[in-house]
């Protein structure tokens, strides 16, 4: 009940603000802002000082902001947090369309960047020197923030996927860790047969998770070229995903629990949800959210779609971007660079964030870090390998937040009724195409 109403509210808020965002920003075209900003200009701005407002919920930014202010005493960073996800984007779109109260720096997840960059809501950071940072990052995140020679944000963290599994449960029922999705399906059957209350995973339809699995399976449903987009779920990769997941659904092998709810945390803790395929940022959430299962869980590489294939994908992850209407862009860029490329990265990694920078991922101290929660496992080795194996040619739709908001009305049906996954994906495709056309995109069919 609460979920439905909140989803409706979210829908209303999102649709109205998206519409506002697109129309309001269409008018304020200014590409004149492309002159290069030298490092000297930025240093001068830092020496002069001023205030910047940062909208971000990433918890480690608190320390980073404090350190930044210590280094540049004349700069005041006003970090506004507490809010994430849809509410954050609603507020950001509202501010952009109203033209007032726009922050200098905003946290924007990779899947939502396109929506803001295409409507010219963000500053191209390449003239500020961001284009020279490409080689510092792993390909997945860098591909997400850049478009040709334009750079719309700096990667803050990344979410190369891994398979987390409850070793205690696996050992109890003598299940081996699956290395392919077919083995995963067998493990799901074996587990549920041994304990009808236990499931291999929870899934009631999650747009972010599904797109990540499609990504890993080699499907490329979205093609984006400026305002020309294409949506097509009819490829070999999508077929692989449909086949395995349809069996999991048909045989009722997935726990009917939504992610991130208290039920979900409970299931992860009591052994009724035995695996979780998600981004490498998950350990921090395990520690605070599932304290009672400490020592039971381990990390492993994602199961492959074809035996021996190492392909991985990203799930989650976000960037810091500078809105086009930001007042103090030099300072905003300086902070973004400090937090996501400079000294801030080490601080954030030490507080549990998962990096997007190659140097940190490859460093010995990072890779040999032992996770108490995972029984002393050096899990970062697995995550770093996954990060290196993420295919970089994936792209999200420029209206992905909207598309994700209608996922449960289309594909979601496959999880709760007799609708087939393939039909659900087709319905999602049609609805996305329709919305894209309404918003003025040229949609190729």
């Amino acid at each position, binding site marked *: 009940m609460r979920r439905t109403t909140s989803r409706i509210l979210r829908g*209303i808020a999102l649709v109205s603000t998206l519409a506002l965002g697109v129309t309001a920003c269409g008018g304020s075209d200014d590409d004149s802002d492309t002159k290069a900003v030298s490092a000297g200009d930025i240093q001068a701005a830092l020496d002069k000082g001023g205030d910047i407002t940062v909208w971000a919920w990433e*918890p*480690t930014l608190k320390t980073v902001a404090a350190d930044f202010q210590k280094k540049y005493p004349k700069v005041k960073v006003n970090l*506004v947090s507490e809010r994430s*996800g849809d509410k954050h984007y609603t507020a950001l779109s509202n501010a952009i369309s*109203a033209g007032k109260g726009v922050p200098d720096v905003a946290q924007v997840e990779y899947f939502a960047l396109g929506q803001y960059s295409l409507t010219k809501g963000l500053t191209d950071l390449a003239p500020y020197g961001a284009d020279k940072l490409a080689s510092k990052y792993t390909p997945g995140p860098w591909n997400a923030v850049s478009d040709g020679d334009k750079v719309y944000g700096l990667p803050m963290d990344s979410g190369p996927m891994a398979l987390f599994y409850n070793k205690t449960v696996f050992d109890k029922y003598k299940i081996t860790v699956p290395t392919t999705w077919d083995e995963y399906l067998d493990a799901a059957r074996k587990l549920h047969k041994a304990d009808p209350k236990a499931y291999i995973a929870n899934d009631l339809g999650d747009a972010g998770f599904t797109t990540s699995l499609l990504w890993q399976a080699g499907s490329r449903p979205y093609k984006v070229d400026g305002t020309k987009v294409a949506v097509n779920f009819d490829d070999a990769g999508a077929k692989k995903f449909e086949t395995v997941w349809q069996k999991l659904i048909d045989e009722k092998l997935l726990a009917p629990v939504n992610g991130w709810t208290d039920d979900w*945390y*409970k299931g992860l803790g009591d052994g009724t949800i035995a695996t979780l395929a998600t981004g490498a940022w998950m350990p921090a959430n395990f520690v*605070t959210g599932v304290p009672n299962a400490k020592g039971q869980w381990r990390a492993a590489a994602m199961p492959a779609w074809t035996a021996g294939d190492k392909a991985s994908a990203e799930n989650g992850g976000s960037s810091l971007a500078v809105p086009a209407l930001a007042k103090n862009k030099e300072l905003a860029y300086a902070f973004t660079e400090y937090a996501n490329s400079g000294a801030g990265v080490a601080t954030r990694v030490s507080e549990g964030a998962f990096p997007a920078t190659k140097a940190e991922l490859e460093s010995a101290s990072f890779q040999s870090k032992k996770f108490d929660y995972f029984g002393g496992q050096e899990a970062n080795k697995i995550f770093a390998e996954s990060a290196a194996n993420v295919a970089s040619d994936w792209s999200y739709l420029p209206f992905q937040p909207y598309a994700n908001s209608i996922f449960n009305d289309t594909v979601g049906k496959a999880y709760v009724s007799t609708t087939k996954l393939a039909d659900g994906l087709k319905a999602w495709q049609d609805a996305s195409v329709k919305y894209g056309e309404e918003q003025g995109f040229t949609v190729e069919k």
Partner: protein
Amino acid sequence: MSTSVTAPPAKSTAPRLRTPGKKRTPGKPKRNVLLTVLMAVMVLYTVVPLIWLIINSTKTQAGLADSNGLWFAHDFALWDNIRDTFTYHDGIFGRWLLNTLLYVVLGAGGATLLAVLGGYALAKFDFPGKRAIFAVVIGAVAVPGTALAVPTFLMFSKMGLTDTPWAVIIPSLVSPFGLYLMWVFAAEAIPTELLEAARMDGASEARTFFQVALPLLAPGIVTVLLFTTVATWNNYFLPLIMLKDPDWYPLTLGLSAWSSQAQTIGGDVIFNLVITGSLLTILPLIAAFLFLQKYWQSGLAAGSVKE
């Protein structure tokens, strides 16, 4: 809120045995088994969530995950939870509590004041356009606040008032339902003859209002005050789109932000504090209902009996 439903069905005096066939005295209806059962179900329905809230605010985050929802866990952490709720994030919960009080005092208080003044004027004075106002008020009662939220946001944004407490207080001042209730109440509770008598004695309009009308309106005022207080205390959507700065959040928004931390990468999962905070949030409302109950019950009955 729903506390009203749980009000005990009449006074439960000990049942007296009656000889069958005797004529029943009016005013003492026979006990109806079906109604009693229905009532019991309603009481359960409203009280169980409250009990759940009380029980679960005694658990730690770990205890919440591995214990039954309707019984206590092995760890009793109520006092720790209350302390943590008030100290987490530099004690921002206390700030949210003060914000909520501010919005209630200025918003709900102001809305009640306006409703009383407006309702009195509409009930006791004749002026052109009264029918039109009636139509507008009735129409406004039917419009959900949610539908007006986005236009209101854009308007306040133009005025530069978003992300300030005014963006929450000013829209809260408008209570069409309160106005309508006061209007009906004033029409019934204040005999026009009384006002005429006061005027004949030479009292000014202001004096008539304050010394003659206002005491008669007291039950109605309490009722409207309760309605607007509950509405402002529980208001979520308006502050959600108006406010960005957590320092100005009311409790509803703050608790929701804490709850959504559990859905954030790297976020701190604090369901135990969310639950304890929710309990602390509803306590003042329960207190307000208990203390003001007799006033507002008499207020609702006004005009139902012709004297």
